[in-house]
């Protein structure tokens, strides 16, 4: 399994990475990108199974990245978990409409992250079935 963690703040990338490892994603290759542009370039050159992206990033924001992923024929089925600072309704609805698979509000625990990921994978499984 391959996960791409996107955040401009490297501390945050490390936190997400640590949490994923804590959740047992040990057999997982976790890669990092510092903004949407970098992420998109990586997504197009390698194959990933999940994107965990911050919302608020320079150059290309998380929502812009999400839209780019959904608009790309090769990437559009890629699950995206959005990390946001606020549990803001408008934002989350906008993200849902843009095709986000899940969202998680900072700061969050490994347990919360697991719940969010489980829901994403459940839905994916349902879609596949």
């Amino acid at each position, binding site marked *: 399994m391959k996960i791409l963690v996107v955040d*401009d*703040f*490297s*501390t*945050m*990338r*490390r*936190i997400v990475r*640590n*949490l994923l490892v804590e959740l047992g994603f040990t057999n997982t290759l976790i890669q*990092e*990108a*510092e*903004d949407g542009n*970098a992420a998109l370039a990586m997504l197009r050159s390698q194959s990933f199974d999940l994107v965990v992206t911050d919302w*608020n990033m*320079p*150059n290309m*924001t998380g*929502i*812009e990245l999400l839209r780019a*992923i*959904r*608009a790309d024929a090769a*990437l*559009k*089925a890629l*699950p*995206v978990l959005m990390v*946001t*600072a*606020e*549990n*803001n*309704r*408008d*934002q989350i*609805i*906008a993200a*849902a*409409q*843009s*095709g*986000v*698979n*899940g*969202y998680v*509000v*900072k*700061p969050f*625990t*490994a*347990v919360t992250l697991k*719940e969010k990921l489980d*829901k994403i994978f459940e*839905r*994916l499984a*349902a*879609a*596949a079935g």
Partner: protein
Amino acid sequence: MSVELDNELLNVFLIEARELLESLGEQLVDLESTPGDVELLNAVFRAFHTVKGGAGFLGLNPMVELCHRAEDLLNEARNGAIVLDAGFMDALLESLDLLNDMMRAADGGVPIEAAPRSLLDRLLIPGRAATAAPVALAAPVAVAASAPARAHDPIEDEFEAMLDAARSDRAPTPAPSGTISDDEFEALLDSLYGTAAPGSEPVGGVPPAAAAPAPATDPNAISDDEFEALLDSLHGTAAPGTTPIAAPEPVAPAAAVAPTATPVAPAPASSTDDTSPKPKAATEKRGAQTADTTVRVDTHRLDGLVDAAGELVLVRNRLSNLAPRGTNDPMERAIGELERVAEDLQNAVLRMRMQPVGKLFSRFPRIVRDLARQLGKEIELVTEGEDTDIDRTVVEALADPLVHLLRNAVDHGIEMPDARAREGKPRAGTVRLAAGQFGDRIVITVTDDGKGMDPEVLRRKAVEKGLMDEEQAARLDERECYEIVFRPGFSTASQVSDISGRGVGMDVVKTKIVELGGTLSIDSRVGHGSTVRLSVPLTLAILRVLMVRVGDRLLSLPMSNVAEVFELVPGQIQELDGRIVAAHRQRALPLADLGRWAGAAGKGGHVVVVQIGHQTLGCLVDEVLGREDVMAKPLGPFLKDVPGVAGATITGDGRIALVLDLAGLADDGGQVLPSLRMAV
């Protein structure tokens, strides 16, 4: 919280957050002068926002709380609800200071105290309640505040009305709760995609919402259960992208059961940061975004590398001295190769230690701003050449002298606004801080458009303070008059102010710069302002020296102190006032016996003119061997404190040459040590 206060994570956070906060000071000051700069405002907002996010994970709740307040205030400014006046700016800058203090505490393992209520309150817009910071790691915190506070704000209401008008297709609704629960979100996904996943092939061949955005949902309050019920009723029938998911009827009861509301304008674009794109310029300004292509290296390791590269260059010098010349011998070619490689290596290593001077400059706008506000002056600090690279050690050593020069310019240079207006000058003074590279030196100038310095006043003061007699003072040319300010115990301010110190400032600046192998000069015009120009070597790792021989000793004199070299002609040495001088360029040049000081007997056929302290001296030497780039190695513990000796180096032919520290040959008053003086 499940993320333990992992030390490694904390350290990474502190380093990264510190970088953010470092540029924040400058950005805030810039913002005060250009409040309309949206990109800058976003960048400032982002810095607080990012620090808050990281601090939240580490459980540094006082930091989260403080950042959250600052963020809310900045968000209001972004929404145009307020203008960041000097009072808000003071509060933001103080918050920045406090954040730095908090990070120092966290670094030292000391528990962080909450920010004082008084400061937090100053970050609030009068009459508004605070929003809760997301410090709890449990359930997402609803944004809690009293709705009435907002309802009483006529501007806000008007703004609301405008927004409502803009989205007139939606039903106007009462106080919103801007948050969303997990269940709501899941239900929302269901409504958008059925049970399918976003981006996957839609169930029943209906196009996904991403491709055809659904009509905007109502952003207003709704309780989890009601939302759930609503979606249940829609579930299965709602094809993604075809049916609006919100119906107005559950909304009114929701308002009743969910009385929490945000004081922030609930318009989609205004409620939080996350909806606005981050301008590129803001990031560039912040720098430090290239985490994936840079490596942090402990400076001690870097210094070790510089040392090793220096040693290699010394060995290379010896080898090339030993090498057969002009024989086209394979050994000669190999040594030639080694020379080139060693040089490349040394240059590469030195570049690694370079830092843009802008890193240093970024501290200054804050200092100038606070000082100007304290003095009631209006001052704009203009910086130029921030991308000039300087050796890290030089950058650090320049910090204090530059602060002093800036304080001087603000305190003594720039006049009060009224006084400036009377002179026909703009009320706001300008202090210009510029850096540039000239050959192997960096020149930094601090220029103000203030009142300038009057040579006559300086002469009079010098006499009053007993620094010289009237005759000596009268003989000084203009430039020499300005030099007086660098004398110990001299201060041009008739009143000692807290700000520019007590007359211990400028001479300390001079000493520091000279220690760096630098020079300082002043230019001034009465009524037009002053310029202090300082020139320092690009790097301290390599010293450009003049190699001389005295008796059987080799000495290297730093080129930064060397003015010129000449050969003595018979009769040129004379006695004057009991001192031995050389008649040179129509002046009596006092001579120094470097040979005697170094314990070597020399005949002294040549003179090297050097600047030591405040004096120009001619050093008698036997032979001038030429210029060389050397790495001064420190002497052992017993010899390291010998005044005037910076270290030693190995010459190409394997001999040892002392590297002199000429500044060390003068006492604190800038007088040359008696042992050097040549008296009759």
